[in-house]
């Protein structure tokens, strides 16, 4: 399991290897945003457990030195659930090694990273089937069954 110390962060065991939003070299002068961000995740997780309030953190809006985001992803690690979406490009929804803390990563059709969020919830909304899409699915099934003798 991950072991988080007060000042320096040590990771043992599982660690995700994913491309960060920016840069890749190790930061010699970090922004100092890593620990506060982990505190925000911790507070959000507690609020969700106590009050049921979900929380989303947009990683794109937080300045990080090259390499710092990679460090965050390594600390959060990989959990038990991983889902791949094909919706306007690929997306990856993954529960981190901290259950209830999800990492949602969006790419466009060219594979370019266009958004990365940390969500604290049962399951991110984007994974759920949408009623509007289900209504179209129902219509398609009706059409299929009305011609079932010739098409199935």
């Amino acid at each position, binding site marked *: 399991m991950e072991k988080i110390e007060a000042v320096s962060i040590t990771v043992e065991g599982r660690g995700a290897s994913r491309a960060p*939003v*920016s*840069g890749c*070299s190790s930061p*010699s*002068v*970090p*922004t*100092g945003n890593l620990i506060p961000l982990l505190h925000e995740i911790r507070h959000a997780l507690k609020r969700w457990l106590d009050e049921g309030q979900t929380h*989303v*953190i*947009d990683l*794109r*809006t937080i*300045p*990080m*030195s*090259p390499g710092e985001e990679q460090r965050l992803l390594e600390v959060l690690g990989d959990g038990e659930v991983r889902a791949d*979406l094909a*919706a*306007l*490009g690929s*997306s990856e929804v993954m529960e981190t090694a901290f259950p209830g803390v999800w990492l*949602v990563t*969006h790419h*466009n*059709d*060219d594979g*370019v*990273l*266009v*958004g990365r*969020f940390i969500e604290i919830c049962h399951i991110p*909304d*984007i994974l759920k*089937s*949408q009623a*509007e*899409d289900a209504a*179209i699915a129902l219509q398609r099934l009706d059409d299929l069954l009305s011609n079932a003798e010739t098409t199935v």
Partner: protein
Amino acid sequence: MKKDQTLGEALRSRGISRRSFLKFCATTASMMALPPSMIPVIAETLEKMRRPSVIWLSFQECTGCTESITRSNSATIEDLIFNVISLDYHHTLQAASGEAAEAARKAAMEENWGKYLVVVDGSIPTGNPGFSTIAGISNVDMLAETVKGAAAIVAVGTCASFGGIPKADPNPTGAVSVSDLVTDKPIINVPGCPPIPVVITGVLVQFLTFGLPELDSLSRPKAFYGQSIHDRCYRRPFYDKGLFAESFDDEGAKKGWCLYKLGCKGPTTYNACATAKWNDGTSFPIEAGHPCLGCSEPDFWDGGGFYKSISTPTGDIGRNAVYAAGAGLLAGAAIGGVLHARKQAAVRKHQRATIDDLGEES
């Protein structure tokens, strides 16, 4: 696509799922620096929106702004909005030309009077109407006629927002910005040379979703221009610790230290480059090792030198003017002549220009 369809209906008819649409809304909210809690609001509003008519006017410009948005490789998501608005007039992109194109513009205005959006790129010459015309119509006249029935105007690029390079000293065409001529309509300035593609689409999404966005003192949407490049720059910690690159190839530059002393205008420039980034999110100028030029600020071209730090007095032009006033115009002409002669000599010898040379010339 039918004009009376809502955006949601149009997307579904194009086979785009609501889940994809939610993804678009999430990345758009991120781009607009809106809190993630606004994602459902954006989705609900955009989905019910009717297809808006947009008339795009290109005046004294280099087409870089249109290039910025059309050359974006991240086509599907950023182009989504452009596919669902009704871009009724854009003389660079549309197939029709001359009278047929102008007829399309007038038809769009009549059909959507009071509701259409006007997007302008390029400054407007006021010196001589013949400096820039479209189908024989001067830019001043076309702007005045087109904005009459507009709901709002989006000035895309620094030229339309502030006059830009055409307005740079000595401004030979008498170039002015849209807001210099139009005073009775809401104007949203989206400066940048060019503006970031996702910022252009983001401003349109923001306008269509929430109406006129909150603007700063220069009429720029605060969502994108609310913070300086410096505040969002990943090199900011180096600045705070006093670690600066002194030249483009010293140890500081190699270590990625702050570019303030090499002329970075990040502290006085408001834009989203540090977060939205360029070339499909690859990087932005400072990340590539070059100082910010401050292209989204008024008169950036006449700021005293791209490679002079902000703390350096922008004295050359002013000082030369003082010298000229004190010693007679002849002295001013002589100083100009020396600089010109040095530049010409360098050109003849194919010498490399130094940072100091560039500073003197600019």
